[in-house]
């Protein structure tokens, strides 16, 4: 056993309100620079939808992730030699228009326009060329379905759904969408890293953050195509790759990442997961049906004495082990089994996890009036027993979070519904009847667990949602410098501006 620690984020999709506060917090902090205008290290997509960059999940085109052929794990993008041959031109690399042409407005026009009969307007200009442009698309063009069904039905995840379900999803009274916030997944088997010819990308062992060494990046841009989530971006001005850094400067000083910290819906949780590095990359070398189980088995129980012993042997501090024991990530992923990785079939073993959203109850139109499809007294139990009636098809969620494997989604939705039903009876009726208890049993849970899920889902405080261990950077600094001298030197040094090389 080779125990390592990982900072992981949980996204509770049932709580996301699609406000994009997270994206703005991230943008203001990290990508409000020349060459990075079009980058959204954190973005929020409406699902069904095509996402950002448009149709990023279409791996036939973008060639992201790994392919398991039964014997070997290969990059979908290239072989080693093939990669070197394609340095001069790399066909699967998305073009800027797959994201969008970044734009701003000529605000000076508002002040400098000559006196006239009309109000002056600020025309849109491209942030690349500075020329006037017509805005044709943006990073969230299909937000809330974009007022049309055009975008949603190009969602690659819909393709495997039966035609009848797809048609049903388009009917007005059936229309449904949810939000999908995405950052870099800081994978355990990152394809971007494996595809980089220069070896400029690396994973930090102590917390699993995947970073690009800008000094080693040579603009070969293979990572951009190889990342199946399209979360490595090419800075067109400096000619270097950039990606989400999981706000490591914030984590190292005990603060939650900007996206998590600012999240209005409080959908995000941060915590340490312990994993067994010896199981990599074999974890990804299983059939699609076994992926979720294999993925969960890499994550270790932080209370297991054996795990604790080998964590200590690997130099993981006790504060990190306690932190892993308190971790909301551990609870949601492993203990309660509610959180799943996004697109595990890309086989990068992503380490950010999602709790799938619940659906609104199905309604029908009768004599021009909307009516719920089930009787009032049966409402709770009906949906619980008839998951196939859910407005967000289980198959669709499975395509997103479990490689199409519905049996991984059903227990999660049932447990969440059970929690909801239990808590409703408890708070509205004040009593829990036998039927509800039987239902909990049926969902594979019990009152204690359900109450704990309820508590962490609905009202965690800052310290419960973000369990961030002490990084003790001073011990790392000791490796090359006297920490006190280092502290005194802070602010005195030379920084080379990130200018485009000659």
């Amino acid at each position, binding site marked *: 056993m080779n125990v390592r620690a990982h900072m992981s984020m949980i996204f509770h999709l049932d709580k996301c309100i699609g406000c994009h506060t997270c994206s703005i917090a991230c943008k203001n902090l990290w990508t409000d620079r020349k060459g990075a205008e079009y980058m959204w290290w954190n973005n929020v997509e409406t699902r069904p939808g095509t996402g950002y960059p448009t149709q990023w999940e279409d791996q036939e085109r973008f060639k992201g992730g790994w392919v398991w052929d039964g014997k070997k794990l290969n990059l979908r993008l290239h072989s*080693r*030699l093939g*990669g*070197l041959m394609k*340095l*001069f*031109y*790399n*066909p699967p*690399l*998305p*073009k*800027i228009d797959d994201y969008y042409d970044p734009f701003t407005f000529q605000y000076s026009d508002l002040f400098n326009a000559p006196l006239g009969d009309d109000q002056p307007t600020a025309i849109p200009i491209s942030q*690349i*060329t*500075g*020329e006037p442009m017509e805005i044709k698309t943006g990073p969230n063009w299909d937000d809330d379905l974009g007022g049309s069904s055009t975008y949603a039905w190009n969602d690659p995840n819909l393709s495997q759904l039966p035609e009848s379900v797809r048609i049903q999803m388009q009917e007005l009274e059936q229309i449904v969408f949810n939000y999908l916030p995405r950052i870099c997944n800081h994978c355990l*088997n*990152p394809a971007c*890293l*494996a595809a980089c*010819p*220069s*070896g400029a*990308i*690396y*994973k*930090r*062992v*102590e917390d699993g953050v995947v970073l690009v060494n*800008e*000094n*080693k*990046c*040579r*603009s*070969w*841009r293979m990572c*951009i195509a190889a990342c199946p989530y399209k979360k490595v971006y*090419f800075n*067109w*001005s*400096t*000619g*270097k790759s950039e990606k989400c850094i999981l706000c490591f400067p914030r984590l190292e000083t005990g603060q939650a990442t900007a996206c998590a910290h600012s999240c209005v819906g409080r959908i995000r949780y941060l915590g340490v997961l312990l994993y067994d590095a010896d199981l*990599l*990359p074999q974890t990804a070398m299983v059939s699609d049906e076994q992926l979720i189980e294999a993925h969960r088995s890499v994550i270790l129980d932080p209370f297991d004495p054996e795990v604790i012993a080998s964590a200590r042997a690997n*130099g993981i501090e006790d504060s990190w082990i306690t932190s892993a024991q308190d971790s909301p990530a551990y609870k949601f992923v492993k203990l309660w089994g509610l959180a799943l990785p996004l697109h595990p079939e890309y086989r990068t073993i992503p380490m950010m996890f999602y709790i799938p959203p619940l659906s609104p109850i199905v309604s029908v139109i009768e004599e021009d009036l909307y009516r719920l499809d089930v009787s009032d007294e049966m409402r709770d139990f009906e949906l619980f027993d008839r998951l196939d009636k859910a407005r967000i098809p289980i198959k669709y969620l499975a395509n997103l979070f479990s490689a199409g494997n519905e049996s991984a989604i059903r227990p999660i939705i049932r447990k969440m519904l059970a929690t909801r039903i239990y808590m409703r009876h408890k708070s509205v009726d004040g009593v829990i009847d036998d039927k509800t208890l039987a239902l909990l049993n049926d969902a594979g849970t019990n009152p204690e667990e359900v109450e704990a899920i309820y508590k962490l889902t609905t009202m965690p405080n800052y310290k419960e949602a973000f369990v961030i261990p002490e990084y*003790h950077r001073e*011990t*790392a600094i*000791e*490796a*090359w410098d006297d920490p006190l001298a280092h502290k005194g030197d802070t602010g005195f040094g030379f920084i*080379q501006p*990130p*200018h*485009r*090389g*000659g």
Partner: protein
Amino acid sequence: MIWDTIFFIILPYIAFSLAIAVGIYRSIYRPFTVTSLSSQLLERKKLYWGSISFHYGLVTILLAHLYALTLPKSVLWWNSVPIRLYLLELTGLALGIFAFVGICILLWRRFSEKRVQAVTTPMDIVVLVLVFISILTGILIASLYRFGSSWFTVIFTPYILSMFAFKPNVGLVAPLPWLIKLHVINFFIMVAVFPFSRLIHIFTYPFQYLYRPWQIVIWNRKVKSAKKLSSAQGK
């Protein structure tokens, strides 16, 4: 002649010294600037036609030059049979034209694409023009002064060797026609420009990718080295 001394002794020595010294300095102290500055994200259609033909054509020809310089005898041996000579010359010319088409498309792309212009530095233009002259003169020489693959070895191999020995024999190149001289001088200028431009990416071609492990993990907390350091300091 004084001009021959300037262009074939002083210029190459300066150019190569610059290339080595500045190249090393830049790789160590300004590593962020060392990149191939791809602009594929901004424009890809013209790049496809330009970049592939240019790179493959030019790299092959450059390697052929290098080969002829280091192993002249084998080239002469090969050329001793006429059909083999024609084959070699024709291949060279074809590759030259291939690269020439590439550089023309790349130049056209630089000037016609607004987005590419947004990232174009003056040095980019200098590099493109130098490469353009180099390929154009190369093609002209190959077609006007036959057969380059043979006379090249008897003139330039000794010349380069004399340069390496610091006993430059400029008499070898002095009688050459101006077109060939231009080709060579242009090359020396390219060498001088090399460390200051994007050309430096040539020497970062990542051969190590063929054998490096797929995944790279780095410990920030260098516990071991920290311990070593403190014991060395007697703490």
